[in-house]
């Protein structure tokens, strides 16, 4: 996947996570809805943040086959 796609996805996930958290705190949406949103978007946010710099630098490789 290209870099800009990952970055867009990360920013979107960031907005959703923070938004869901804030809305849950204020009481705009229920606990269940907050939990559901966080469950789906927290992993995306984590992976996206970690991939922000590193994605796409290496070439495909064969798996590790032992020595």
């Amino acid at each position, binding site marked *: 996947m290209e870099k800009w796609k990952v970055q867009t996805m990360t920013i979107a996930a960031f907005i959703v996570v923070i938004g869901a958290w804030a809305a849950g705190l204020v009481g705009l949406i229920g606990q269940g809805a907050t939990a559901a949103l966080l469950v789906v978007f927290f992993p995306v946010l984590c992976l996206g943040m970690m991939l922000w710099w590193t994605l796409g630098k290496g070439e495909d490789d*064969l*798996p590790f*086959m*032992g020595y």
Partner: protein
Amino acid sequence: MASAGVAGEPFFALPFGDIVNYFTPYTAVLFGFALLFTLICILSRPEQQLDVVFGTDAYYAKGVTGKELRFRRFMSIACGCATMAAMVSGDVFNFTLFVSMVGVCIIGIVAAVKSRHVLDAAYNYGIIAIVATIPLFGGAAITLATTGTLSIWELSAMASGMPLIAKMLIIVGVMGEGIAPFYAAKAELFRAPGAPYVIMIHVSSLLMFLRVVEILLTV
């Protein structure tokens, strides 16, 4: 609706005549998970399996034909659909039907594999799956005969509930279709290539087991 203590309050029911499928937080989680893995089966391309040539440094990729993979994907999607239906079924007989459908689908997922070892395991699994339908349907039949109903809601509202022997028969049946002590065949089936499809084998049987625990605690 007396199952609240086990799996939470039902929040949505989908009636098909007498067969009412219901969603509690528990069944909804299971349903969602079956759906997720069915989607992965549909969208994901299978991996290419590598193997080491024994005694050397060389390795080779196992070749798999597209036709075979198409059939296996079809079977795993069927398996996913049957699992989803069994997860939310609110009727004992309907549940047993979908469990046995999962058993047939699992054989289908590995039937196209050209490895003798996997096929041997599938054959043994198939015999067990077929035998297991007898306790399954027997349990449902005894339930209907002694309580006069098959609906899980009605059974859980009853004082007497499902007779012990019916419960035992159903759990033995699900054990045969699913996992429990009969892990050897499942583990051998897993050696087949095609990760997304092979995983469906275990997704379905584990979800079955989870659902049957809930049903037996409820009724």
